[in-house]
Structure formats: structure tokens, C-alpha cells
């Protein structure tokens, strides 16, 4: 074991049940103990069916929690009945699997229902130093707490449930350091979009990505979650931020967080959770925070993004390897090379998703929307990250600001981020969206997505076109 280790390697070492090959360092195969998982109704059903067919039990039911989030309605007056029969069947089977295998499940009407990666942290169930694997790619979110989180498919959900472990190959390590302080109007979303644009959609492929630097440390826990969440969009299988006192403060008083003497004991154990001075990173990238501006995506891959004052690129001017994909993206998006981003008009505005629908995100949007109106012809909606966020926002009066501005104030779920429920873009509709993926068809077949921060979505909704939040003073 090397004397100087990265945070990632320390956590993996601590969870190694047994080695599976003779390699040391990246490429080492091992049986990895998984502390916790969260289940959803759409990637888990076949895993439970597999357990039944093989006559297997769940190894540690108390290490799993299920939340309905992907297919449920977000209608303000929703009931336990799903938008369609297929969704209902998934929800019903999910509930049955919870009962049969002894796993706690939050159904659609549970007071703590919400998007899985919003719900777990707000319960205080994500603490530093864990390994959390779950059937959703945005499990990287938990890096905000100094925990290794990674997405897995259904076969590995079954494997994890049956054994509490996964055969695992150690990743290489990469560090992105964001030095300095960001300018006003620049958020965690802009920081991570700038990182993705800088290193590319596969820039951290095969790596565990540690985010470091003053600009990252200055973020609250919710901003750190935004960054780690979207790190998967540059190919990082794991994202990590060194845990500090802000994490401990965040955990205080949360229902599933350790308390009293146990918390003190945990805190002492957590102090070593940092990359050692001299730890070796296979790649090390530095970015100046002051160079980051509010970002919007123009294409169909999250790295096809620019500062808001930019123009749609001319594919002919791009490197040959990017040209054909850029041409296709511009055609799909219905744009023209050379067009100013701020001239792009929108039909829809959406604030939601596991990336950007926590309370601080909603507050940032409300600061822009207070006393303003959504532009005529734009349909705007907010789906809070969880039912808890929804209650907290209402207690602060944010819902009144949103509805007065013309936003729909909806219930919680993944909603229009991936449009598995009835929140869908019509073909050709263009949406300013606080979500994480601008893939073709992501928000609906033929739909066009521009990714940006919640405040930038609010600004676009008011302007009726992509707009620079820095020129729209906060109330």
C-alpha cells in the first residue's frame, strides 16, 4: 500500500473484502463491500425477479431504501394512482418487493418521497467514507459527503442485494482543482458545466474524479451535490470532495444521521478522509474560477456548452473529430451557426431534477422571479427535488413567488428531466432546463434541451429566450 493515498483509494481499501487479482493500483480487482443502496421502481424490478427465480434473499435489507421517483405523476393534486398502467405496475411491484424482502419503501404519497439522490442526503443517511452503489447513474452525487457513489445496472443491483458486495475494478484517479472565487451570478452548475466543457464528455472516463480548490470548498453541501451529480456527464464513475465541518453541520439533526456519542466517534474517524499530501493523481487539471461564466448547452451532449454571451459554433471551424457530431446536434436543435445564444427563444422552462431542485436552488430561482412574470407563450414548471423540499419552500413562501410569476408549482419526482412520466416535451419544443442531460429525445422525442442553472432557467423564463442572469438584478 503506498504511503500517500488519494481519498478514493483510502475508501476503496477500507471496503475490500478480498482481492480478485494480483494487480496493485488501477486495474486491481476486488470484492467491494457496499454500505448502502437506494432503489427506484424502474431499474430494480428485474433484480428482484432474479432473486426470486434463484431463491435468494437480500443480504442486509436495512442497507437498502426504496423511493418511487421516476414514473410517478408530479401533478399538484396527484393521488396514489400513476399516470398510466405501466407505471402503476412498476410502482405496485416495487411496493411488493419491499414487503417481500423487508426493505423500507417510500411510495408516491409518503411525506419524504422525492428524487432518490435528494431524499438520501436529506435523511442524513449519507455520511463520509461510505461506498454507495445504486441503479442510477447520478449516484455520484454522494461524493459531496466524501463518499464513493457509483451507478450500476440491474444485474449488479441483484448482485448487491444478494451479497452486499460487487466485484470491482479500481479506477484511476483524476483531480480537477478550481482555484479562486467565482464571480457573482456563477453557481455550482456553471462550475461543473465549465469542467465538462473543458475536459469533454469522456474527459474523466475510467477515473475517480476528486474536485478540489477554494471555489469548491466555498460551496455549501447542496452546491457540492450539484457538482458531484453532474460529474458523471464527463465520464467520471465516481466524484469526490474532501469532507469538512460543513458536512458535519449538514448532518446535524437529520433523522437517519448518527447522533451524540456515535457522531463524535464518527467525526474522529472522518478526519483522515482526505487525499494525502503527495498522493499521486493520474491526471491533474486546474481551472480558474474567475474565468467561469453562466453556462448554457447548445447541443445534444453536455460538453456542447458555452458561456451565455457566446454564439452557436460553426462546425467548419471545429476540430475534424467534433465536426460531424456538431452538425448533427445543431440540426437537431434547430439552430444556426453564428447565432447568439441569447437570441434563442424558448417554449418551456423547467426547474427540477437530482442536479438542481434542492432548497438553495429554489431560493436562487425565486430571487430572480420575485416581482417578475414568465414571458407570454412560455410554459414554466418547478418540480421540487423532494416532498420535504416542497414543504420547506412553502414554509418560506417560495411557492407564492413561483405561482405569482406564472410557474406551475408541482409535486416531486424525476419529471421532465427524463420524461418517463407524463411531463414530456412535444416534438420541436425547446426547454430551458436545470437538469443534467441534453441528449436527443431526453425530455421527449424531438424535444430540445438547453442545460443551465436554476437562476438561468428563471431568467430565460422571464425573457422568453436564453438570457444572462447577470443582467437581471435580484430583488
Amino acid at each position, binding site marked *: 500500500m503506498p504511503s500517500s493515498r488519494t481519498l478514493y483509494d483510502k475508501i476503496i481499501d477500507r471496503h475490500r*473484502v*478480498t482481492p480478485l487479482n494480483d494487480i496493485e493500483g488501477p486495474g486491481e*480487482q476486488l*470484492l467491494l*463491500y457496499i454500505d448502502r443502496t437506494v432503489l427506484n421502481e*424502474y*431499474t430494480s*424490478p*428485474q433484480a428482484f*425477479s432474479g432473486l426470486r427465480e*434463484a*431463491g435468494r434473499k437480500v*443480504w442486509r435489507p436495512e442497507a437498502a431504501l426504496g423511493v418511487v421517483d421516476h*414514473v410517478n405523476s408530479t401533478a399538484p393534486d396527484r393521488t396514489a394512482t400513476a399516470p*398510466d398502467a*405501466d407505471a402503476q*405496475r*412498476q410502482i405496485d411491484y416495487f411496493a411488493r418487493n419491499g414487503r417481500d424482502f423487508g426493505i423500507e419503501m417510500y411510495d408516491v404519497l409518503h411525506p419524504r418521497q422525492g428524487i432518490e439522490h435528494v431524499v438520501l442526503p436529506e435523511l442524513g443517511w449519507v*455520511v463520509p*467514507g*461510505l461506498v454507495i452503489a445504486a*441503479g442510477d*447513474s447520478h449516484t455520484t452525487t454522494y461524493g459531496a459527503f466524501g463518499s464513493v457513489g*457509483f*451507478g*450500476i*445496472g*440491474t*444485474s*449488479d443491483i441483484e448482485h448487491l442485494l*444478494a*451479497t*452486499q*458486495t460487487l*466485484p470491482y*475494478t479500481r479506477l484511476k484517479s483524476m483531480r480537477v482543482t478550481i482555484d479562486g472565487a467565482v464571480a457573482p451570478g456563477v453557481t455550482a452548475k456553471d462550475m461543473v458545466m465549465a469542467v465538462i466543457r473543458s475536459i469533454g*464528455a*469522456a474527459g474523466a*472516463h*475510467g477515473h475517480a474524479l476528486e474536485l478540489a480548490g477554494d471555489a469548491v470548498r466555498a460551496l455549501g453541501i447542496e452546491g457540492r451535490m450539484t457538482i458531484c451529480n453532474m460529474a458523471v*456527464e464527463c*465520464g467520471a*464513475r465516481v466524484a469526490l470532495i474532501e469532507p469538512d465541518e460543513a458536512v458535519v453541520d449538514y448532518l446535524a439533526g437529520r433523522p437517519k444521521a*448518527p447522533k451524540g456519542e*456515535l*457522531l463524535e466517534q*464518527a467525526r474522529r*474517524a472522518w478526519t483522515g478522509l482526505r487525499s494525502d499530501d503527495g498522493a499521486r493523481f493520474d491526471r491533474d487539471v486546474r481551472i480558474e474560477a474567475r474565468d467561469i461564466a453562466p453556462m448554457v448547452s447548445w447541443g445534444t451532449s453536455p*460538453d456542447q456548452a458555452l458561456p451565455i454571451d457566446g454564439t452557436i459554433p460553426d462546425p467548419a471551424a471545429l476540430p475534424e*473529430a467534433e465536426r*460531424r*457530431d456538431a452538425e448533427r446536434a445543431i440540426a437537431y436543435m434547430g439552430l444556426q451557426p453564428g447565432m447568439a445564444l441569447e437570441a434563442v427563444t424558448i417554449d418551456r422552462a423547467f426547474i427540477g431534477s437530482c442536479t438542481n431542485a434542492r432548497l438553495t436552488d429554489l431560493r436562487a430561482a425565486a430571487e430572480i422571479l420575485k416581482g417578475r412574470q414568465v414571458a407570454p407563450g412560455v410554459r414554466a414548471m418547478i418540480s421540487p427535488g423532494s416532498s420535504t423540499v416542497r414543504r420547506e419552500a412553502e414554509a418560506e413562501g417560495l411557492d407564492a413567488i413561483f405561482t405569482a410569476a406564472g410557474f406551475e408549482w408541482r409535486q416531486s419526482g424525476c419529471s421532465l428531466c*427524463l*420524461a*418517463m412520466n407524463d411531463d414530456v416535451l412535444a416534438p420541436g419544443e425547446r426547454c430551458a432546463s436545470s437538469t443534467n*442531460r441534453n*441528449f*436527443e*429525445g431526453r425530455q421527449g422525442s*424531438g424535444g430540445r434541451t438547453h442545460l443551465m442553472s436554476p437562476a438561468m432557467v428563471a431568467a430565460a423564463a422571464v425573457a422568453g429566450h436564453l438570457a444572462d442572469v447577470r443582467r437581471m438584478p435580484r430583488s
Partner: protein
Amino acid sequence: MTKPKTERGFSRLTATAAVMPAANVDTDVIMPKQFLKGIDRAGLARGLFHDMRFDADGSPDPAFLLNRPGFEDCRILVTGPNFGCGSSREHAVWGMLQYGIRAIIGTSFAGIFADNAANNGLLLISLDEEAHGRLAAYLAARHTALTIDLEAENIMVDDLVLPFAIDPRRRRAIMLGLDRIGETLAHADAIRAFQTDYLAAAPWLA
């Protein structure tokens, strides 16, 4: 009780290959959302590349590569970098296999997609850019079958022979169709012992 989940093991495959060079092809495009609402694995062949493969009225788009004459028996894709990025949905891999795709040759594959492929016996081969470029250029110039030999670890098309490397565990799983959960449960005593010690040392997790 421990029957193999993949009974489609192979060591040699000869089939038509289709070249799809786009970078960052994501699993939303490979398997769109409308095919994710089952509780089993059925019916996913239709979903593969659905929104590119079919017109709005549901008829095959003749311009899409897999719909063109000569690609009816396509079993191999030659893809661009970072193939399979995005969502963790294993439906993308299930759909590939149900459609008939048995192997994908690229330069890099997104991590979750690669794990899902390994768990289902879909062979992924990563070539370096130079070798990949030669193969793609060769296939673009003529319509021909290629052979993947897993024992010899090479790809053959006419006189072009390209070696590749594959993780031995993944190769074995493709060739034999292993029961990975059964393999892990052979370590059940070690897992139990680890867990006992681990939770004793971190009682806030117990």
C-alpha cells in the same frame, strides 16, 4: 439454483458489422424512455435506437444504417468513443442482445454500460484509435463480414488482422456464461466476517 444467467457463450463470431462513428452515443438514444416501463426484460428489440430507426408513424427509416439492405444480419457494431454514456439503464444492453447484436467494437465505452454488457454476455472490444480507424475505414469501403476470435484475441476481416486485449474475467464470462452472484456467494463467509468487523469498528453504520 445457480444456473448461468447467460447461456449464449461463444468463442468465435463471424457476422456483418455496421459502422456508427458518432461520439458519445448515449443510452437514451440506444433505448428511449418509452421502453423502460416493464417489470421484465421483454420487448426491447423494437426499442433499440428506436427514435432513429423508425419514423413518427412507426415505419423503418430507410436512411438509418441498420435498415439498409445488407445489414439484416448485422451482429456487430463498430462505434465511436464513449459509447453508452448517460443513464444506467441495462435495458440498452438487453435491447442490443434481443435485436441480435453480440459484440461492439469501439475505442471506449462508458463504465456502467460496460459493466452491464459484461453481466449479460455482450462482448465489448476496445481498440486503440489507430486500429479502430483502420477497421472503420476498411468496413466503410466495402460491405463484408468480420470475425472475432476470443481465444486468439483478434479481429479478422479479409487480410486485416487486429489484435485486441480483454480482461480475462470478462472474456471467460463471455465464453462460458458465468453465474457471477454464485461466484461471489462462494465468498459468503469472508463477506460475513468482513461485515462483522467493519460494523464493529464503525458502529454509527450498524
